[in-house]
């Protein structure tokens, strides 16, 4: 079942390298105890994923990925990290049962997913793809996906306002 004989192509090599980077980044992120390290290594993973997007001919998405995740989200996180103090990291007693169960759960889930993926009978040919997919994306966004697009704007506004409303310190004078 585990059939790994794959043609070694350029794409594959690139995929291999990037995926190793992504996984290593992710694993490191999980293993680091310092938050900053974690944030940075996860950013590394995000960049690797962006690379994979390029490989998958999704340059626009890759761009957005870098911009949003590596830029915005990770920065947001570091921002958060800096705002919150984090002294007593890594000193708590472990939770062996919990961690073991979590590991078992995740591994089982992965096993199931892997079984599904392995058992799938994917079409070997990738269909010819539109050249300028950024334009296509733009077109689609403003035609067929206009409603979700507008909605996302509402969503972002709400998140923005909400985040401010929550995070802002209340003036002592008020009420």
């Amino acid at each position, binding site marked *: 079942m585990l059939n790994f004989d794959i043609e070694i192509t350029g794409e594959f090599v690139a995929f291999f390298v990037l995926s190793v980077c992504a996984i290593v980044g992710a694993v490191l992120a999980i293993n680091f105890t310092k938050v900053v390290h974690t944030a940075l290594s996860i950013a590394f993973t995000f960049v690797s994923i962006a690379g994979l997007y390029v490989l998958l001919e999704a340059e626009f998405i890759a761009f957005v990925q870098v911009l949003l995740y590596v830029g915005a989200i990770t920065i947001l996180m570091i921002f958060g990290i800096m705002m919150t103090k984090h002294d007593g990291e890594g000193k708590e007693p472990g939770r062996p049962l919990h961690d073991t169960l979590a590991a078992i759960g995740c591994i089982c889930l992965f096993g199931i997913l892997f079984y*599904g993926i392995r058992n*799938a*009978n994917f079409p070997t040919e990738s269909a010819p793809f539109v050249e300028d997919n950024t334009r296509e994306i733009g077109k689609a966004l403003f035609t067929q996906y206009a409603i979700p697009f507008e909605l996302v704007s509402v969503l972002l506004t*709400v998140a923005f306002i909400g985040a401010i409303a929550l995070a802002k310190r209340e003036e002592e004078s008020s009420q």
Partner: protein
Amino acid sequence: MEALQTLSWSDTWYLAPELVLSGFAILLVILDLLLPKRINRNVIGWLTLVGLLVSATFVVLLMLSLGDGTDPADSTPEFYSLLGGSYRIDDFGNLLKLVFLGASFFIVFSSLGTVRDTDVPVKAELYYLVLPAALGAMVMSSSGDLITLFVGLELLSITTYILVATRKRNRLSSEAAFKYVVMGGVASAFILYGMSFLYGLTGGTNFAFIAQGLGSAIENFEALLYICFFLMIAGFAVKLALAPFHVWAADVYQGAPTPVTAFLAVVAKGAAFAMLYRIFMNSAFLTPADGSFLQKDVFIALSVLAAAAMIVGTVGALRQKNVKRLLALSGVANAGILLTPLAINLTEMHASLFSEFIYFLIAYSFMNIGAFSVLTILTRDSGNESISGFAGLYHRAPWTAVAMTILLCSLAGLPVTGGFMGKLLILFGTFQTHTYWLGAVILVTTVISYAVYFSFIRQMFMRSGTVDAKLKMSVPATITIWVCTIVTLVLGFMPVPLLEGIDHIFSIPADLLVIQG
């Protein structure tokens, strides 16, 4: 794909309810910024109500403009489809939208005058954020496309994350919000993961596409398709708080401001159901039944979850002393019941799943909102969220106690209330399809739930509280309580008009299945 459809100005008519909501939301944000601090933010509450009402009016108008498909000569379309079917104005959506808007209306209405600034410093946000949340819910019930669905879901979720955290001075509120964010995020991830497979295996995000692709998908990727559905089930189970995915609910309900709790219990849950119906009836249900057990198994999984939710919710509520947590667990049990019509699937014998569902949803909404309104009044009075806060309520406010009793009877499914009729209909469905075990679970958990709900009644009627003074009632809350009580009774005694109405306008092929694209 056919010629790309774009939005035109004429489509604003179809989107009017949604547009009204987003418009009001933006307007109120600005208003809140401009209004001087000293002005009581109840104004925003009232305006929120106006927005909800206007939106509801448009929904009704849209419903009236739709044909019911009974008369072949009638050329009025049974539904409107926008953007290649990615957004649908049909009776499924409209009915649910009305429920969401109505529920939101009563929740906001009853909270007017009971929410205290000391508790919720950002009162304006509490009110106007209900609008985008309701908008999200409406989008979820109306979309015919995975992407739209997802965005709607996230709009609702993110808004509710914020709403939960609005008791800024309360340590519990932000903890609840955090838990909700984590669980909600994981759930979203699961749903998305499942959706990504659904997209990948069928080649479309539109339900029409998905339906077409299912046939070959089941041949080639049966296992992956199973996984895809189960991943989505997991995500939805978290959103719906079905056991064993329910544990967060109690914490979040407890931490949130009471109106938000009611919103979570009614609107958020209902919206998740709307999405579940949309997705599962247009994908899992349409998988070919011969040669694969996929369809059967998915619905069995839903049945199992429904049963587990009923059992765990009821049993868990037995030992619960905090009213909000108790109602959360009761909500878990009720989610199980609400899931049942879908879980027993649409078959030759059982075609009334939607009317069963929506009937009980309506009944459930009213009884929950009523109960939460009573709770709001009580917690404002004493700050006591424990069940003992109800002690001696009969002596302090006899009529409220009576109303609460009726609402509780409805929650417990005792005749003659909306809860009873709704449960009876759902039960009848389980028996029609010979799913006796599920029916038995419903009944037995219902009986156990008597112990839960009657413990309130014991407190209200058989114990004496620490305070004897008359309970101070706020007018909107009182009105809400009585509206809910009366509706509950009416639903119990006269279910037929509503059911006939639903039956009249609702038709499964046109309104639930998106086969025609």
